[in-house]
């Protein structure tokens, strides 16, 4: 018995919701960043599932671009975290509040 498409979409939605929960409830900037990566991976799973069920390579090509964008975002985001840490030795996002009015 084949695995229907809905199962993959539900799994991808679950992973996306876990990523959203991680972004909104954690204070550590690096764990927030990892939750964003989880959301991107959930979207990758959706794209590949649709590509497999439609017989089209478009979804898989888009996943390559999503991976490239995620890698670029990882490099720049972590560089920002390091630069922030140099000014104030914390990665707690509730303590990085100089711009708060």
């Amino acid at each position, binding site marked *: *018995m*084949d*695995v*229907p*498409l*809905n*199962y*993959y979409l*539900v*799994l991808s*939605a*679950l*992973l996306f919701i*876990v*990523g*959203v*929960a*991680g*972004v*909104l*409830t*954690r*204070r*550590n900037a*690096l*764990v927030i960043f*990892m*939750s964003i*990566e*989880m959301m991107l*991976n959930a979207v*990758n*799973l959706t794209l*590949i*599932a649709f*590509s*497999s*069920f*439609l*017989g089209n*390579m*478009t979804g*898989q*090509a888009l*996943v*390559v*671009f999503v*991976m490239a*964008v*995620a*890698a*670029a975002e*990882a*490099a*720049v985001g*972590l*560089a*920002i975290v*390091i*630069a922030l840490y140099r000014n104030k030795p914390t990665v707690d996002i509730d303590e990085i509040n100089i711009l708060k009015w």
Partner: protein
Amino acid sequence: MSVSAEMLFFFFLGALAVTTAVMMIVQRNPVMSAICLIGNFFALAGLYLLLHAQFLAVLQIIVYTGAIMVLVVFVIMLLNLADERNLVDRMNIRTTFGIVLSAGLLLELAVIVFTRSYPAMPRPIPTVAGAMGTVEGMGAALFGPFLLPFEITSLLLLVAIVGAVILAKKRL
């Protein structure tokens, strides 16, 4: 009703992916979070293999696990972070809103899954040549209809490298 091997693999890998994901957002030590996320990426690579996307499964392991997570672990090591406090000790408006929103999304997903019926979508039989997940198929797509995004991605990576080096320098 006999359960096929594909269904078994799907449930095993899916359970592994969701478990490691939840463990990642619950762990207080950021290194343990990173290790859980690496486990999640391996489970996802297995799911990509189930979906006949061999090239992307290997790319997932090389790029996400081997590059991005290594970078994250290096940064955690450089910054020498402490454990985070318990969630109940640091509740504020933002975390309450986050929990409510996530619960709402989960409820929405449950409603969509359990109160509607969906027609079965037939799966196309992969051809003998198997152009669907192989390197040749990906090359045909990337150098065919997706040539412009492919070239722009190389520009994006160059910009990201230059930006990351400048942002992380001690003296400009």
